[in-house]
Every structure is written in structure tokens, then in C-alpha cells.
């Protein structure tokens, strides 16, 4: 066994052990913390699988933003532990225990199906390297995301907008002032924010630019932007209302509109949707990625507030 595969085995066992532990514990805070470490280990796994774009995205979004969302939602809940198990009848207990072999059978079926089809796809496989070569970006993942499968990306952004509207509608309509935090943020956090946020914005710009030729791109840049927005919110340097008021909505709509415009711009020339003209393909991809970066950053940042402020804090509820 090579050192690489030994490392892989340890990683795999740790992933499964973390997943089992976080789903069998009764303490929700422990589950959330284990989930964040699970996300970080998964980022290492992506690096082992030769997918640096995924590693960047999972570390930033999967562990970072999702972890922040969970912690914010956990803070809004009243009790930190799961409910005591209610007394269950024999039938219920039998149903619960039968879930284990059923899920194991599902995993077994998937593995069996996978073992039956070990050869790479004969239709798509030979065509792919040539198509990536001819695409608008040098990094293969960006080429697939924004040129070969740009339609999927467009629809994905539409789904993000739907999620944003969903998050907004779940937010409880508060009175005049937003619910006050229990105590002001630490001076250290404020200073760190002042130092880190400009660097983070610069880093987002670099990731956007580098996405054409290296691992990077709009999603990772948008995640870094969302992280800096969340940091600003936590340090109370940014009022939550500023992310959902009219200028923010205008920017969000404009960014999405730009993507749609670029997509439809080829129609009047008699070509199919999202067919970039040869000379301008590279520039168009960069423009679309810029719009995507802004969009993803704003959406993920706005979703963060809505998770944490949907109900009054306990201190205010009692008074």
C-alpha cells in the first residue's frame, strides 16, 4: 500500500466516522461543529482527487458559509439539544431499525451498479478534450462551466435567486429597528475586519481573474466575497438591511440581467443561445464571471442574515 492510498484510507474512515457521529449525537452544537470539520476534510479529499476548484469551493462554501449558516440558525433556536426520544411503540421501533439495512442496501446497489460499468463513456469521452481545447477558457472546469455547459450555470443562478427570495420571505417582519445583539462586537474583531475585508475583496478579484487559466473562477470568488460580507455583518459594520434594500436588489437583478443578456445576445445573429462569437469569447466569459461573482457574493451574504434573524432573540422576547 502506497503512502498515498494509506492517507486516502484514513481520510475515508474519518469522513464516515464524522458523518456517523454528527448524526447520532443528541447535542446539536456538537453536530454543527463536527459538520464544519467534515466540510474541511472533504476539501482535502477534493485536493487528493485532483480537483482544486472543488477544494477551494468546498472549503469556502461547504465548510465556511454553510457552517456560518448553521451556527447562526443554531443561535436562534431555543434549546441546544435534540428532544428526548419519545416513547415509541413496537411498530415504530421496528420501522426505525429497518432503516439501517435499507440504507445499507442502497449503498450496496450503488456499488454494484458502479462495478458493472467500469469503462469510460464511449460517446462523450473522446470528444471532450478537443472541445475543451477549443473552448473560451484554458482551465477545463471553467471552460465547461461557462462555455460548454453555460446553460446549466444560467439555470443554477436562477435557482439561487429563487432561494434568495425564499430566504427573504421567511424573514419575520421586524418593527422599526432590527433586533439588537446582546453585546457589542469585540474591538479585536472590528480591527481584524478592517484589515481583512479589503484583502478578501482583492483576493476575490484575483480568483475571478485567475479562473480563466487556473483553478478559480466566479464561484470561489463569490464565496470569498460572501465571507467578507458575513464578517462585516458579524462585526456590526454593515447593517443587515443594506443587503436587501433597493440598491442591493437592483445590483442583483442587474447582474443576473447581464448574464441573460449575454446569453440571448447571439439570437439576433441567427446563432443559438449562449454561443459566444469567436473573438470575444474570452472577454465575454470574464464579464459573465464578474456578474456571477457579484451575484453569488450578494446572495450568500443575504442568505446569512435571514438565517439568523428570523426570530427575536430570547433576551428581547422576555422583555
Amino acid at each position, binding site marked *: 500500500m502506497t503512502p498515498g492510498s494509506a492517507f486516502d484510507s484514513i481520510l475515508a474512515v474519518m469522513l464516515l466516522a464524522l458523518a456517523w457521529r454528527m448524526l447520532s449525537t443528541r447535542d446539536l452544537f456538537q453536530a454543527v461543529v463536527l459538520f464544519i470539520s467534515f466540510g474541511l476534510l472533504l476539501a482535502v479529499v477534493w485536493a487528493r482527487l485532483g480537483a482544486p476548484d472543488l477544494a477551494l469551493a468546498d472549503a469556502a*462554501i461547504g465548510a465556511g458559509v454553510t457552517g456560518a449558516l448553521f451556527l447562526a440558525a443554531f443561535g436562534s433556536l431555543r434549546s441546544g439539544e435534540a428532544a428526548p426520544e419519545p416513547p415509541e411503540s413496537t411498530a415504530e421501533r421496528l420501522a426505525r431499525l429497518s432503516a439501517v439495512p435499507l440504507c445499507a442496501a442502497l449503498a450496496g446497489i450503488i456499488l454494484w451498479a458502479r462495478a458493472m460499468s467500469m469503462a469510460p463513456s464511449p460517446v462523450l469521452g473522446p470528444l471532450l478534450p478537443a472541445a475543451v481545447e477549443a473552448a473560451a477558457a484554458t482551465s477545463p472546469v471553467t471552460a465547461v462551466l461557462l462555455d460548454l455547459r453555460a446553460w446549466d450555470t444560467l439555470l443554477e443562478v436562477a435557482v439561487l435567486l429563487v432561494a*434568495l427570495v425564499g430566504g427573504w420571505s421567511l424573514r419575520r417582519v421586524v418593527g422599526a429597528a432590527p433586533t439588537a445583539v446582546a453585546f457589542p462586537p469585540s474591538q479585536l474583531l472590528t480591527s481584524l475586519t478592517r484589515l481583512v475585508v479589503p484583502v478578501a475583496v482583492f483576493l476575490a478579484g484575483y480568483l475571478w481573474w485567475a479562473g480563466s487559466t487556473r483553478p478559480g473562477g466566479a464561484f470561489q470568488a463569490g464565496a470569498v466575497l460572501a465571507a467578507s460580507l458575513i464578517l462585516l455583518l458579524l462585526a456590526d459594520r454593515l447593517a443587515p438591511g443594506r443587503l436587501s434594500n433597493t440598491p442591493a436588489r437592483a445590483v442583483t437583478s442587474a447582474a443576473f440581467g447581464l448574464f441573460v443578456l449575454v446569453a440571448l445576445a447571439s439570437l439576433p445573429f441567427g446563432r443559438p443561445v449562449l454561443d459566444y462569437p469567436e473573438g470575444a469569447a474570452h472577454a465575454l466569459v470574464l464579464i459573465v464571471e464578474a456578474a456571477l461573482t457579484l451575484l453569488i457574493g450578494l446572495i450568500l451574504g443575504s442568505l446569512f442574515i435571514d438565517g439568523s434573524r428570523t426570530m427575536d432573540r430570547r433576551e428581547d422576547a422576555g422583555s
Partner: protein
Amino acid sequence: MIWVVTGAGLLAVGLHGALVRPHLMQKVIAFNVMTSGVFLLLVGGARSVDGAPDPVAQAMVLTGIVIAVSATAVMLGLVCRIEAMRGKAHLPETE
């Protein structure tokens, strides 16, 4: 191959957790574990013609990660709302 097994295992563990655990937030965590399992299946099981990492699978998973976080955000908003309206965030609903 080990990642395909891990992905299937995560999918099974996540599904079991989503079915069995009564607390809603833990169900949301379980859904996230399931999505991670599926992503591992996609990327770990993908194979390009010349042995290079498959960019199509990676692009799909990248899209999936972003959608998973937005779905999680909406789910968590729902959980907080349910707790605000019913007083508790765990099943059974009537007690």
C-alpha cells in the same frame, strides 16, 4: 474506487440520519451529508479518456455545492420559522 465506496457510505449514513433523527436541524445536516456523498460518487467515480480528472463531473459538483448551500439556507430559515411558530423544532409534531 475507495472514494466511490465512501460516497455510497456517506449517502447511506445521511439517508439513515434523515429518516431516523427527530430534530429538524439534524435532518438538514443529514441532507448535507447526503449531498457530499453524491458529490464524492460523481467525482470519485468519474474517469476521463486519458486519465485526466474529468472536468464535466467537477463542473457539475461545483454547481451542486453552491445550490446545496442555498437550499440549506432556505431549509434553516424554515426550521427557525417552525420553531418560532410551534415552540419546538423536532418531530413528532403533536405532543
